[in-house]
């Protein structure tokens, strides 16, 4: 782990470790700052909370949102739930996978995009829906997806 990552994690631990039920807030802060939770950070997190390393690892691996490898520059989340399935979400999912050339939980070779499934974005009246980073997009067609990607200025 780089020194700067270590310093980031120490600062997060100092700020949050005394909260009640601090582990999830800490993991969120680490992932927000670094795009993932480096496995090398587990000993210091465990130490700060008086937990075993196995307990911290167990929590990270339980939650779909937490990741232990760096995310791409942008993370694309595709809703796989029923409302989107009812509105051509299936073909959209296939299109996005082909377009990015990756499957779920993978990152494109140039490091631009990570692809993740999500079960409902609460945007069910505007299905099918996807999320790119923090932004949610509704009524997305394959062409619409291309436009959003083009707007991001990222190459495919």
């Amino acid at each position, binding site marked *: 782990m780089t020194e700067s990552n270590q310093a980031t994690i120490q600062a997060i631990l100092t700020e949050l470790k005394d909260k009640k039920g601090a582990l999830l807030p800490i993991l969120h802060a680490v992932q927000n700052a670094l795009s993932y939770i480096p496995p090398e950070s587990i000993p210091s997190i465990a130490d700060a909370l008086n937990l075993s390393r196995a307990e911290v690892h167990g929590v990270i691996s339980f939650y779909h949102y937490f990741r232990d490898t760096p995310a791409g520059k942008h993370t694309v989340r595709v809703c796989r739930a029923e409302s989107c399935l009812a509105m051509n979400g299936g073909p959209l999912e296939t299109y996005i996978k082909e377009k990015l050339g990756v499957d779920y939980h993978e990152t494109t070779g140039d490091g631009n995009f990570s692809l993740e499934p999500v079960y409902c974005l609460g945007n069910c009246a505007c299905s099918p829906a996807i999320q790119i980073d923090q932004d949610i*997009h509704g009524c997305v067609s394959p062409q619409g997806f291309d436009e959003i990607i083009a707007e991001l200025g990222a190459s495919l």
Partner: protein
Amino acid sequence: MSITIYVPCDSSAVSLGANRVANAITNEAQKRGIEINLVRNGSRGMYWLEPMVEVATEKGRIAFGAVKTGDVASLFDADFLHGGSHALSLGMTEELPYFKKQQRLTFARVGITDPVSVEDYIAHDGYRGLKNTLALSQADVVKHVSDSGLRGRGGAAFPTGIKWNTVLNTVSDQKYIICNADEGDSGTFSDRMIMEGDPLVLIEGMTIAGLAVGATQGYIYLRIEYPHAYEILNTAIANAQAAGYLGDDIQGSGRAFHLEVRLGAGAYVCGEETSLMESLEGKRGLVRFKPPLPAISGLFGKPTVVNNVISLASVPIILDKGGEFYRDFGMGRSRGTLPLQLAGNLKHPGLVELAFGVTLREILYDFGGGSATGRPIRSVQVGGPLGAYLPESQFDTPVDYEAFTEIWAVLGHGGIVAFDDSVDMAEMAKYSMEFCAEESCGKCTPCRIGATRGHEVMTDIVNKRDLDKNIPLLRSLCDTMLNGSLCALGGMTPYPVLSALNHFPEDFGISAEHHTA
């Protein structure tokens, strides 16, 4: 005098371009030297018209929708600020039939106010319930909630008053209020709309709950998929605190209530209350055995009220107008209103709040306008991913907890997802098993192993392999999951699976005569 224009900040409206439209309106007004006051309101819930722009007039608000950035210049050209006519003009917002026919109690302010303005909230009858609460005894506050007949809107429909009463009567140095905002059910978004469109009603509801049962700390457990709601909630909490509605001394009463938003991390099972508490404590979201009930020993082992967003957001009006007022809406043992969420393949998807008793058919056709594709609606799933699929023959069922139980279905959180006749119900049943396998917490065997085996059996069935063996096997497996699972995830996944099999056997490759329900 500047004219007030409303453009929703609701994330669904934003997902269709509301932020860009708001910017375009600001820029265009500036360019033309027109002074406007742009308010980012919640959504009115008519999503096929979003982004919907409203202009305040003396007679009320006029709506325009769905507005794209390219329409903005022509709206100004048509003098939309002074009621000029335009192709996108919809007339008075509140005269639109979809909106006018609703009975909005919980959603009374959504789309009307600036969501994070305490001043605006109070100007629209906000904090009247809290004012009454501060003048009542704790037992009387709980009595109002009991009298209202309010049942948990998260899905389980447990009487809220009984839960509160248990926590009130359990002695402890610390108690907690948890708002379950882990709205993971697909096809549902009413919690999100409240949190983005009127967060203060949730904050008021939680404050009332805290005062009623003697809890000084509240947590909103919010799913990570709702980043907009997270920001709006935190702003609203800070504003409520600054105005003396949260903190150590609420409105000079000397009584305390603190509130914090905590984020989940993408685990559906954390919508189950005991799993949610494990997660809040910083652990894996494994479901707990009950008893003990959370009301006796919940978060950090302390008595805890765990209520859904809509349950808590319905409390302020109950304390404002009394339990009897709320109880007068509804039918049978389902009292009050239910904010229904119309999703999937519908022409007019959105939020419809109505008293219990309306039929599914009225919702699907009178409000939903039939399917978006124009084909017949073949099936609807009510109540999220663990809800049964209903065929057309059951569309006359009234929205009522008991009526749904009678047809082996659930209302759940009020989400309705419609499918047209292109749907393959065996694929949907397979998806339900896959979802359960993906989201199982792993604590109990029927769910952990059952869902994986279920996905395998459904894959065989979809591929028409050994149907004589696999259909009975699927039924037997569902029986084990139904009766042997620790929580609703494994225990209710058989609802969508078996209802699909029973109502649509032809999609499973068997004729109606061959299958035995």
